[in-house]
Each structure stands twice: as structure tokens, then as C-alpha cells.
């Protein structure tokens, strides 16, 4: 197989992305809209969504806390959207970024205006995930604002490529399927691979959609390598 002929060839910009340009300082005057919510009127899904968000914030940016919060939000589904929209206005950049990331899974026409506003967020991660979330609703229009992001966003290796991909997006991802897959992830399996124990089995698909199961390679030594690619 020649990777050069693949569709959806990944980009390895892990190192390049570190060079992403500087942007203006975070605007600290943003208000916390959470103050507006009334504790008495909290519904069960809303409370669960707030708990998930609190779990992320308490996790001190550990990836496990992020993963767990994403799984919990996927389990809650659309009902989590209001809490995330509120978090998209939070004063803490990490919280806004996480909210935008979670909204990728909850992208619906109702959240579209808020995501569009987030395209000018001072934190590149918020812009990046907002673009991605919007692209789940279909390819982004080639309007002036989006062209400007494509050509002038200070995050050259993060936000700009994400916009380039979003403008040309042709696939129609099933958000419901993705949410279900994430919601069904057993969190007890997280970080469970241990030297000396049977390697956790998995099923993944290749670029052509072919299914591959780790255990099908019994009898051979397997070198399993995880790398990042950006889109």
C-alpha cells in the first residue's frame, strides 16, 4: 500500500503546530453567564452536563478527565448543549476550548449561531473546534469571513488547515453514530494496557473502511504505534 494514494491522508503537523503564531491576550472582561442560571430549575440532564464539565475542570487538564467528560456528554446527548453553549462564554480559555470540542459531537442548527460567534474567540483551540463543529453540519461557505480565517488566522498550522478542510468537506458524518460509539465506551478500560498482560483487543477501520481486529494477528509480533494527525 502506498500512503501517497490514500484518500484522507493524515498530516503530521505535530511539530509544525508548535510554531502556531501568537494571538492577542485573552479578554478577561467576558462575563460568566453561569451566574444567570437558577439552581432551583436544574433538570437531570443539565445537572449531569454540569457535573461532566466540572469533572473536566477539576481534572487539571489531564487527558483522562477530558475523555471521561466527553464520554459523559455523549451519553447525555443534545440535552447537554445549553450547558456547553454557556461554557463557550466562560472566562477560562480551557473551558471554552473543551466546550467547543464537545460541541463537535452535538452540532445542530440550534448551536450554529453560538459556534459562529466562537470563530473570533481569542483562543485558537476554540476557533479550531468551532470550525470543526460547524463542518459537521456541512461544508462551510466560502464567504469573506471564512476566507479571512483561511488566509490570515495566526494559527497557521491549527486553525487555518481546519478551515481549509471544513471548506471542502464532502462527507456527511453521522453524529448520532459517533455519539453512540463514544457513549458506549467503557471508561474502566481507560489507560488499562499493561506490560505483561494481554493487550486490550480492539476493532478499527482503515482508510478504505476495512475492519481490522488486533487479535487477528495472533501468531505474529505486532508493533502498534499511535501517532497524532491533525485532520
Amino acid at each position, binding site marked *: *500500500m*502506498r500512503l501517497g494514494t490514500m*484518500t*484522507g491522508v*493524515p*498530516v*503530521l*503537523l*505535530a511539530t*509544525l503546530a*508548535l510554531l*502556531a503564531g501568537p494571538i492577542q491576550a485573552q479578554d478577561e472582561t467576558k462575563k460568566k453567564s453561569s451566574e444567570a442560571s437558577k439552581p432551583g430549575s436544574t433538570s437531570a440532564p443539565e445537572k449531569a452536563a454540569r457535573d461532566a464539565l466540572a469533572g473536566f475542570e477539576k481534572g487539571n*487538564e*489531564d*487527558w483522562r478527565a*477530558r*475523555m471521561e467528560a466527553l464520554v459523559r456528554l455523549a451519553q447525555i446527548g443534545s440535552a447537554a448543549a445549553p450547558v456547553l453553549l454557556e461554557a463557550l462564554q466562560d472566562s477560562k480559555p480551557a473551558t471554552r*476550548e473543551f466546550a467547543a*470540542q464537545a460541541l463537535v459531537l452535538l452540532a445542530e442548527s440550534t448551536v450554529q449561531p453560538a459556534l459562529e460567534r466562537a470563530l473570533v474567540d481569542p*483562543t*485558537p*483551540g476554540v476557533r479550531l473546534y468551532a470550525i*470543526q463543529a460547524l463542518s459537521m453540519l456541512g461544508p462551510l461557505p466560502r464567504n469573506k469571513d471564512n476566507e479571512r480565517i483561511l488566509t490570515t488566522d495566526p494559527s497557521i498550522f*491549527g486553525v487555518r*488547515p481546519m478551515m481549509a*478542510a*471544513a*471548506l*471542502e468537506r464532502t*462527507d456527511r458524518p453521522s453524529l448520532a453514530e*459517533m455519539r453512540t*460509539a463514544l457513549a458506549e*465506551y467503557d471508561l474502566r478500560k*481507560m*489507560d488499562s494496557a*499493561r*506490560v*505483561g*498482560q*494481554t*493487550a*486490550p*483487543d480492539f476493532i*478499527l*477501520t*482503515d*482508510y478504505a473502511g476495512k475492519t481490522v481486529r*488486533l487479535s487477528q*494477528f*495472533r501468531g505474529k*509480533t*505486532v*508493533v*502498534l*504505534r*499511535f*501517532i*497524532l*494527525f*491533525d485532520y
Partner: protein
Amino acid sequence: MREKAKEYQRRDVQPLLVMAQQSFQLKRPKVLVKVNEDAWARWLDESGWPDAVPGEVLFDPLSTVSATYGVAFQTQFRDDRNVWSSRPAIFVIDPEGVLRNVGSRPDQDIREDVILPVVDDLREQRELIAALSAKEGARGEAARIARAPLGARTKTAIPVLAEALKDESPQVRAGAAAALYWIAAEAGTAVPALTGALQDKDIRARRLSVLALARIGPDARSAVPALIQVLADEHPLVRTAAISALGRIGPDAAAVVVEALQKDKAARIRAAAAAALPAIAGRPPSAVPALIEAMKDTDAGVRAAAALALKKIDPQAAKKAGAK
């Protein structure tokens, strides 16, 4: 076919490359095709990953598999820099499906030129343990337990294997050391026996004992003085393993290396300690003044090793101290 692919096929190794991302498969944007392919080609070239094997490139769009393996990548920006919540990692899984090695460096990707030797080592260990498990009696049974996934019976194999480290046959000693390395997570009680094996005449037994102690980590603290001696081992692979072991045992161990540089009576140990310092994880700041001081050592070998080490750790301090 590329040479690297042949190397994998020759070893009957199946490479699996998992693209871990929190995002989803977007169509490759045309504007970036060129830069993408260049980046990809460069990466393949530098990482040595075989692109022409029926090596599967798999996608993990929700990072669930990555999370299970403890390597979920999620884009996040901190101080306007894109950072990842995790890092690239390599896992080596043996033909029985047991995870045998994990490679991950905090600051850089893992290179294939390191992975293939790990695969070769693994094969040698398998053969040593298989030979031992063919024996009758307790030793054979202990080796068979060591080959299986860790479990309730693992601990019962430890004393038998620890005792086998003293066998007169180098083959048996190396097999026992390999077995203890494989079940190191449960082998804390074998530390004294493994420490004794650091002086084994057989290089395999010696090196595998060092590797086992490295895996045991902080619980192998009592092996530190013996490991310091191993820093001067005649075999470079054993020395490298000792450096890694001292790093994994913890910052206390790294401090003992500095102490050895300052106080050990044998010049060859002082020189070895100096040479080890640049690569030791958790190296204390006191390493720099100690190396500057060691540049005035009575022994020329120590002075040279200290100057070289200082140049690697702190080039400015080295220049100031007159290192050439």
C-alpha cells in the same frame, strides 16, 4: 519494496499504525496536498515506518482505542501554543497477544531504529524462556507461568526464578533473568537475587537483570550501589540499561550517581558516573557543579569524561570551566 518494510517482513512483524485524533476524517484539502505529502514522506523517511508493507493504517476517530492504551491525543492550546494531551507511543505485542514493551519518550517521537532492536531482543528473550520452560519440574513450570499474562500464579514463579539466577548454566541464568524481566511488575521480592546477577559473567543474564530492575523501578532502590558499578560495564548495552534503570528507580538514584562521581574510590566508576549523567532521568542540579569539580580530578579519564558530559548538559558552564 522499501528496505524498512523488508525488515518487518523478515521478522514476521505486523506493523499497525493508529491515527489517533479527537477529530474526524475530513476530506484532504487540496490546498494542503503538497505540504501534506511532503510532511508525510518526510515523516515516513525519518521515523522509518514501513509504508509498503501490508501495514495497516487505522483510524481512531473518537480516541477510544487510544484512551484504552493511554495515549489519547486531543488538540489543546496553552499559551497560544498547540499542545497535545498525550504523546506518541509504541507498543510491542508478542505472538500470544501479550503486551511486552511500551516505548514513549516525553519529548520526542519514538524512532524505528530503536524499535526493531526491541523486537529482536524480545525474540531472544522468548527463546531463552522457551528453553527454560521445556525443563521438567519447578523451573519449567515457573518459566511457563512467566510466559503467560500476569495473574494469580505469577508470584509463585518468582522465588524459583530468583534461585535459577544462580544456576551454573549461563543459558538457565539468562532464561531466568528474561522471565523475571517479563514479570517484573510482580518481581519486587527478586531484587536481591537480581542485584547479585549484575555481576554475572554472561552478558545476557547481566543485561536482562538490569532491565528487570529498571522495570521494578522505585522498589529496586537497594540495587542502586550495584547498578552504579554497572555504569562501568564493559558492554555498552549493559551500561545504557543501567543508566535507564537508575533513572527509573527515581531521583534518589540519580543523586547517588552524582555522589559516585564525587566520592567513588575507583577512577573508572567516577568516569562512568560522569559519562552517565547527561542521559540520566531526574538528574539533580548539583550534577553541574560536581562535573565542574570533576574536571580537576586526579585521573585524566575522569577529567575527560566530566568535560564531555558537561558540554552535553550545560555548554556554557563547560566553556566557562575551560572544557575543550
